[in-house]
């Protein structure tokens, strides 16, 4: 289930602000003071969700992707030690062809054997038969004029999984064609958390308070 909330997230210490270039010959319309606020990032919000609602609140299964047009599941597999070796050789600047011909993989002398193996796609993403579940908070509905559903989002828009914060999303009212950029944060709930979210008003309020601290 996708929980769509209105941004921004919690403002950190107001004195800590990102420094930006205030003006530019290529950007004459920019009139800010050269600083912008620092808000909680997705990892901080996720930590607070875990603390308040449990460690399994978010959907984190690799390969499970929520999109505007459906839920897609990509089969995954763990890479082999040999694949890890050639991947890491490439990141160290050794061309794949050179690695395979000159510095061949040998299990006994694998310098990367203490590093974690990655998950790799084992096939194409498969669209699930059931449509994506979603809920938009009252604040999002108010910002959009009273209603919003997934058809308002750009075609194929990817919500991913986990937590995403402070993203300007162009929403288009499918009836009037009116387009509006709205600052959104969203959390993709795990299946068990989705059940909790539907049944427990307290959990819903907790999640909204963490995701929408200024509302």
């Amino acid at each position, binding site marked *: 289930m996708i929980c769509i909330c209105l941004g921004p997230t919690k403002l950190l210490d107001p004195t800590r602000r990102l420094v*930006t270039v205030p003006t530019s010959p290529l950007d004459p319309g920019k009139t800010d003071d050269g600083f912008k606020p620092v808000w909680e990032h997705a990892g901080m919000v996720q930590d607070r969700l875990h603390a308040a609602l449990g460690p399994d609140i978010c959907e984190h299964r*690799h*390969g499970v992707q929520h999109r505007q047009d459906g839920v897609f599941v990509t089969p995954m597999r763990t890479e082999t030690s040999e694949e890890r070796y050639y991947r890491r050789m490439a990141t160290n600047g050794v061309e794949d062809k050179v690695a395979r011909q000159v510095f061949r993989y040998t299990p006994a002398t694998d310098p990367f054997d203490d590093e974690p193996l990655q998950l790799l796609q084992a096939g194409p993403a498969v669209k699930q038969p059931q449509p994506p579940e979603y809920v938009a908070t009252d604040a999002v509905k108010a910002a959009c004029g009273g209603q919003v559903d997934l058809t308002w989002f750009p075609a194929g828009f990817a919500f991913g999984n*986990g937590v995403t914060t*402070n993203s300007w999303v162009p929403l288009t009212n499918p009836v009037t064609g009116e387009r509006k950029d709205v600052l959104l944060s969203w959390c993709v709930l795990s299946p068990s958390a989705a059940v909790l979210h539907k049944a427990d008003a307290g959990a819903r309020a907790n999640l909204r308070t963490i995701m929408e601290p200024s509302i």
Partner: protein
Amino acid sequence: MAWTAPRTWVSGNVLTAAQLNVDVRDNENALSLHTHTGVAGDGATLSVLSRDGGNTTEATTTSTVAVDILTATVSIATGGIPLNAMVMLRKTTGAAGVAYLLWKVNATVLGSEVIWTAASINQTEAALAELRTRTYMDANYSGATAMATGVNEYIIVSGAATSQALYTAIPNASITSVIVRGRVQDALITMGADELHVYTYPTS
């Protein structure tokens, strides 16, 4: 108001308001208000890089699958025009994992994801990523004299020294959005994207 060649005055002429309006007022207005259309006397617009849009609010994610993080709403009338988009990327510590980048134009995802971090090391990292596109070049030759399809997009990432040539046909219709997609290898890591700027180049 177009420029009117001023009359030549001779001895004995009587000045009228209408003549002053034409020779002075209208011509002053023409000098002040004319646009650079390339018409003789009006000058031409200098061909320069044009900023078509951007997004300067940092968006962040812990998603382990691709998510549309940062969207720049643009209005580029003609697809296929040379385009350059730049974005700042950064990630937190949390796990020994990497972060990935994808570019999307309208609803078209360009190529496959690029690892923009250095390696699977639990450390903070930052990079500047760039997307360059140009007019689509298909293979117009066949048989023994076949020529490769042109490179249509190039993704460059600083820091990780990563680059990738792509062959996806960029949309020929108007471009309304340039989107940064990303994901992290481990949900204990957060990836951020900010300062997205989209520029187009003149084609002639």
